[in-house]
């Protein structure tokens, strides 16, 4: 094992990062187990263990019982959705910050999530009222596609506005993001205004985010694109590192920067699109997770991206547990929890970097 035997060299944080990834993996596992055991129904940890052991052993006596339904049709899909969404949001944040060379770029903050939400809301409102009633699995599939298109268009526009001759202006990026987000939110509001009661219920969910709607078909549809995004991580890690030096410097180091930018914009939009389609707009995960990890293990994307996926997943599952417990039997929208943690965090980065970040 290279990580324990090799001599430490000053400034080389890779071994530490690899160790951290292992620790984060364990943390994620623990959070997932915790999430299966927590909920308003009072299903005990012992029962959960028994049900899982039975299922693993191929005994399905409990199928159809209330506790079986709670565990297998509610808690497991919900936990998995939390892991998928948390991982995508954190990775999308880390990638976007690398692309913009700025720690404050976050899909939620710069309007990408709003763009994705607009896409999804278009499907909900227009899809059922104006075009043709689309339902069932087709609708579950159409949501992430529309959200992806919305997120992709927003990211592309944002990058086009904020970047000139390879230099990205932070001020322009944040302000353009606010404008794009406001525009998308205005259109979304108009659609909400035009929608009927049933649609309205579904739409409120977008604004604050929730893992409550998790079902197996959603998991099945959300998994492949998110796996695809995670699989792209190793292919853009070195490129994103080089990009930190500047776009022409990256090209001098042999990076095909056009290709890299396309991959990153595509991956970010896909990750945010899927996350928003199934869990609504959840802010700040993409900013908090990569920032904490950069402090702990360094900013090299080869380790930062996988570590972000693990910590993002664990953090969102943990936040969801808080949502389920804190006002039980009611549920708090998860966006409230992440914003409560994330906004002060964002401000603290700003305060510390006031001299460095020129707005």
């Amino acid at each position, binding site marked *: 094992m290279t990580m324990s035997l090799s001599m430490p060299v000053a*400034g080389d944080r890779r071994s530490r990062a690899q160790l951290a990834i292992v620790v984060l993996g364990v943390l994620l596992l623990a959070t997932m187990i915790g999430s299966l055991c927590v909920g308003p129904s009072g299903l005990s940890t012992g029962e959960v263990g028994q049900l899982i052991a039975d299922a693993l052993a191929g005994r399905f006596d409990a199928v159809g019982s209330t506790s079986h339904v709670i565990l297998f049709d509610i808690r497991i899909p919900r936990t998995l959705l939390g892991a998928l969404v948390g991982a995508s949001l954190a990775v999308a944040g880390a990638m976007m910050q690398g692309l913009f060379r700025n720690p404050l770029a976050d899909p939620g903050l710069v309007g990408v999530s709003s763009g994705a939400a607009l896409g999804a809301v278009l499907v909900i409102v227009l899809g059922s009222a104006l075009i043709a009633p689309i339902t069932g699995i087709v609708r579950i599939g159409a949501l992430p596609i529309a959200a992806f298109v919305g997120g992709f268009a927003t990211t592309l526009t944002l990058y086009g506005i904020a970047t000139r001759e390879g230099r990205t202006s932070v001020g322009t990026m944040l302000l353009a993001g606010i404008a794009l987000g406001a525009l998308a939110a205005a259109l979304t509001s108009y659609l909400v205004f035009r929608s009927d009661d049933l649609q309205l219920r579904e739409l409120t969910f977008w604004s604050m985010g929730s893992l409550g709607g998790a079902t197996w078909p959603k998991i099945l549809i959300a998994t492949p694109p998110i796996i695809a995004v995670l699989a792209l991580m190793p292919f853009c890690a*070195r490129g994103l590192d080089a990009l930190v*030096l500047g776009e022409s410097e990256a090209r*001098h180091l042999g990076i095909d920067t056009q290709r890299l930018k396309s991959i990153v914009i595509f991956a970010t939009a896909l990750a945010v699109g899927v996350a928003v389609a199934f869990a609504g707009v959840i802010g700040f995960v993409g900013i908090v997770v990569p920032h904490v990890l950069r402090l702990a293990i360094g*900013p090299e994307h080869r380790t930062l991206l996988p570590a972000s996926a693990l910590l993002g997943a664990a953090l969102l599952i943990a936040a969801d547990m808080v949502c389920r417990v804190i006002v039980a039997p009611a549920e708090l929208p998860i966006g409230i929890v992440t914003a409560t943690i994330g906004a002060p965090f964002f401000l603290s980065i700003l305060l510390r970097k006031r001299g460095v970040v020129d707005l």
Partner: protein
Amino acid sequence: MIEADRITIRAGKREILSSVSLAIQPGRVTGIIGPNGAGKSTILKAISGEIALAGGTIRLDGADMTRMKARHVATRRAVLPQSSSLAFPFTVHEVVRLGVSGPRSMEAVRERVTAALARVDLKDYGGRFFQELSGGEQQRVHLARVLCQVWEPCPHGKPNYLFLDEPTASLDLRHQLLTLDTARDFARRGGGVVAILHDMNLAALYADHIIVVDKGRIAAEGPPRAVLTDAMLQAVFGVSIRVGQAPADQPFILPHSVFAA
């Protein structure tokens, strides 16, 4: 050899470079000098593929460089930028490691990085944060990174190239000399070096071949002694001063006034 053949570069309608031809020969240090706005940096940007050509060709060992993949070009030449800032807290070690590419063992990479840092006189700086260094130290970290990229000046008889854009700009005297010593050593071992230099004494001291750029054209080129003349300084730089002779038999320039006394 890198050959630029009648390259023209336009910014809008204005020609920044007009039909410039030059050759970067391996085994020597080519110094580019010229007044502000003459097109020195543009030449370097053109041959490093940073800006599109409006005309002409650039060849590396006879192959069209503009058609080569960035990945391939990067194995043959490294470019030292004038300055560059980092948005994230990279350590010096991590910045230098960016220059090392290809599959190598972690141990070999560490050795390479450590050796490169020693070369630029930053032996114990690996663990420092890049952002916390002074401008001159940051410049030397980048030099170490660039050296890592083309570590062997001439592997298997194929020369590599170093492009240096004002490598001595923010350095103190000791490190100006050290940097150019490193460049000259790279050339002596078979590599090719191009450096934009402002200090004509350093150009005279270190360059084997000097290219004088003026108003987007090459005004003169040749060995320092042939190029650095009173007439050239008057015609290109607009200063009437005499070129003297000192250390050894190299020409040296002592600027005392823009106008003749």
